[in-house]
């Protein structure tokens, strides 16, 4: 009996110690490594740059793959990447890219111009079904290839192993910017041509990090690519943990289990106060608004009603109280930092009296006769609070609104409907982040009738004058000539047509431990923080031999 009791006692003492320490690194095996630990909400759904279209996949793709050119994360200027330089033809419609010598893929093979031709052709291949093929649609012969009338893309040619010529069918001033987006990454044929989708098992690119481990349910590890043409990254490894629960992730960050977070839970002002060294804020080329379905009543053909809604909402209080100053009131479509942003655009001030007046003009005096309308938002606490604030403002002038919060899949369907019919949602939250720093990234996609539907113009806005201005601006090379056209298009959409309920501009907020150095916030989104420039001050002791 005594022996049993002794054994139980020993187990009680030893077991907790083992549980807590069995994985702890032993002092004699410690070494200092450069390891960044970051959180992603979930597994990146698609690691193929051609078919990915979400920020999680972009985050990984930007670390694993590189394109011909890239954005400088701070200035947003186009800088060399795989291409070390480029020349324009005299008419500006043909660009010759000179590739950097000795660029290698992660499998050790040297990258040549044939890989560029393969990657771009693949993006345009209808069989691949790339989600971002529009970035190359201006290339000569892209349309013929896409419709099966040509076997190859006329405008993409490899002059020699180190030179690629791209000819455009029409001028596109921001074409180089499009080549800096993740979809234009250069991928190796032997991996991406594999019918068994070899890249799903082992993605191979020529970027600064290679995928060294990928457990789809728990996390992935990126290892520094020693032969990276830009020089081996300072970080040895990046541990990416998939943590869906944002509250749990916040706790993990607080206890020191994560170095970087781009989603915060709780009061941001409290977090900023609690973690002043970690909280970083920067500009972001993104806007937040509530859209109207302009193809269906009550918003169809009723400008006065749309203006009434715009005058009824107090943007300042929305941004300061609901969003704690993390958003700034919007007066138009373009956000500060975008070329062509118009600080003088009048937009809509908070004016409930004017809203009531316009509501009467719209045929609903005092809101009489206006059937309650659903405001669709996807499940997210902040969005719900914003919707409730707008609901209160609108109800104050007599516009009855019901907030309808649904899961993202349902929201998407309500918004998009089917290709033939507009979506069920007549009034909905929407957001838009620019993929490239050009007015075209907002105005062309959101307003042009060519993009009605899921391409971007989800509200089905259509104004021939605006279409003409946007097309004209797309054909001009010099920004100073383009800007007046964009400003006029924006003015018409905002002041004449009240195309949607303009609300706020995004800012970027992230939490990064102060010992992580080399951080540059990029206005194109947190996934563009250049990981290859980061390092951990003092390194991190690890058990790896």
């Amino acid at each position, binding site marked *: 009996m005594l022996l049993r009791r002794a054994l139980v006692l020993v187990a009680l003492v030893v077991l907790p110690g*083992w*549980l*807590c*320490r*069995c*994985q702890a690194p032993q002092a004699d095996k410690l070494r200092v490594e450069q390891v960044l630990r970051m959180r992603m909400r*979930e*597994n990146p*759904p*698609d690691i193929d740059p051609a078919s*990915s*279209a*979400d920020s999680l996949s972009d985050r990984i793709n930007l670390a694993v793959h590189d394109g011909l050119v890239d954005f400088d994360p701070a200035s947003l200027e186009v800088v060399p990447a795989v291409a070390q330089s480029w020349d324009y033809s005299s008419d500006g419609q043909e660009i010759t890219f000179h590739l950097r010598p000795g660029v290698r893929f992660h499998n050790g093979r040297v990258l040549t111009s044939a890989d560029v031709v393969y990657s771009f052709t693949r993006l345009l291949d*209808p069989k691949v*079904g*790339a*989600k971002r*093929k*529009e970035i190359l649609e201006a290339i000569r012969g892209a349309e013929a290839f896409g419709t099966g009338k040509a076997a190859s893309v006329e405008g993409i040619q490899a002059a020699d192993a180190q030179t690629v010529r791209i000819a455009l069918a029409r001028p596109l001033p921001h074409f180089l910017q499009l080549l800096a987006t993740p979809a234009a990454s250069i991928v190796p044929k032997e991996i991406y041509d594999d019918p068994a*989708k070899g890249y*799903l098992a082992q993605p191979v690119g020529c970027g600064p990090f290679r995928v060294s*481990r990928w*457990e*789809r*349910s*728990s*996390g992935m*590890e990126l290892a520094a690519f020693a032969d990276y043409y830009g020089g081996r990254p300072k970080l040895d490894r990046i*541990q990416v*943990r*998939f*943590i*869906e*629960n944002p*509250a*749990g*992730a916040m*706790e*993990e960050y*607080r*206890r020191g*289990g994560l170095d970087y977070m781009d989603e915060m839970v709780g009061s941001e002002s409290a977090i900023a106060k609690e973690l002043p060294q970690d909280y970083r804020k920067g500009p972001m080329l993104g806007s937040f608004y509530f859209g109207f379905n302009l193809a269906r009543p009550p918003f169809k053909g009723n400008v006065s009603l749309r203006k009434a809604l715009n005058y009824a909402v107090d943007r300042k209080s929305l941004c300061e109280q609901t969003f704690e100053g993390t958003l700034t009131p919007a007066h138009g479509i373009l956000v500060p930092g975008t070329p062509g942003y118009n600080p003088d655009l009048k937009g809509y001030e908070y004016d409930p009296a004017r809203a009531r007046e316009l509501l009467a003009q719209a045929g609903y005096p005092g809101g009489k006769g206006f059937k309650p309308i659903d405001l669709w938002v996807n499940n997210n606490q902040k969005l719900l609070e914003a919707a409730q604030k707008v609901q209160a403002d609108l109800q104050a002038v007599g516009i009855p609104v019901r907030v309808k919060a*649904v*899961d*993202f*899949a*349902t929201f*998407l*369907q*309500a*918004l*998009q409907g089917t*290709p033939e019919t507009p979506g069920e949602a007549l009034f909905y939250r929407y957001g838009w982040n620019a993929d490239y720093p050009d007015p075209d990234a907002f105005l062309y*996609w959101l307003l042009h009738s060519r993009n009605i*539907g*899921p*391409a*971007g113009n*989800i509200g089905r806005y259509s104004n021939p004058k605006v279409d003409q201005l946007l097309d004209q601006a797309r054909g001009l090379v010099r920004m100073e000539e383009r800007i007046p056209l964009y400003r006029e298009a924006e003015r018409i959409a905002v002041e004449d047509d009240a195309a949607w309920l303009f609300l706020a501009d995004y800012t970027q907020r992230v939490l990064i431990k102060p010992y992580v150095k080399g951080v540059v916030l990029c206005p194109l989104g947190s996934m563009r923080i250049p990981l290859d420039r980061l390092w951990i001050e003092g390194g991190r002791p690890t*058990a790896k031999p």
Partner: protein
Amino acid sequence: MSGFLLRRILGVVPVLWAVVTVIWMILFILPGDPAAILAGGFRADPQVLARIRAEWGLDDPAPRQYLHYIGRLAHGDLGSSYLQGRPVSRIVAEALPATVILAFSALLIAAAAGVGMGLVSAAKAKRWPDDLLSFFSLVLISLPVFWIGMMLMLTFASRLGWLPALGYGLDGWIIPGTQIRLPEARHLVLPALTLALFSLGNVQRVTRASLLDVLQQPYILSSFARGAGPLRVHLRSALRNALVPIVTVLGIDLAALLGGAVATEFVFAWPGLGKTIVRGIADRDLPVVEGGVLCLCAAFILVNLLVDLCYAWLDPRIRLQ
């Protein structure tokens, strides 16, 4: 015995068919277009949408989609994930070990602690230790798992810093010859404890009630009369005979733990099947949801079968007919 097993296994087929049919119908009528999510959300290209719908048969009429689905299942094919493009069987096989490890660890803790607490309660019936333990059990039964998990995390991970808050750990031991990686032990503690607390109250209450019932039996009274001590009587004579209802509740709890690990897996970023199913529902990745639920149902049925077998082992008077 073998006849019993065969009958039980054959009986499983219509149950599984009914389960998969109901799941399929629920997912089918659920709003949300999988093609839209697959095609990249807001900026989905209509051509890509059309191609995806055709490729996955999402344009087919409902009866054809259902027959296609049942036909695939009959051939043991769970299909491929819309989002990941990988076989569902592989996705389920990757996630299932984590859930099983979590559920069994929780069950072990709940069984050991719950039976222990039940023994104390029964021994000290209607005195303060019994009142205290019964109150504690009632509290545990009433608290949501999500809340328990967050509180444990805040206390032991954030405040005290004794244990990691989240995840499976990246350096767990891989079982030789398999792809199954065990979690790092310290990562297992908090999620297993959370789930165990969920089950603990039930086990304590059933153990107490069952023991009190057995302790009224004449043979127990005669054991006391022969001079046996209370500890010996409780552990040697009473507990074995009180085990049948305890095993029943543990069996039910294990099945519930396998399925009910969803909240715990979400809170602790545990890479199990529950998390995979929830993610699948959010993404309308129907094959993953169907495959995952089917797997959980099969586990539930298997656990019930094992519980039945345990009855006969514990009480030879029970015959498996």
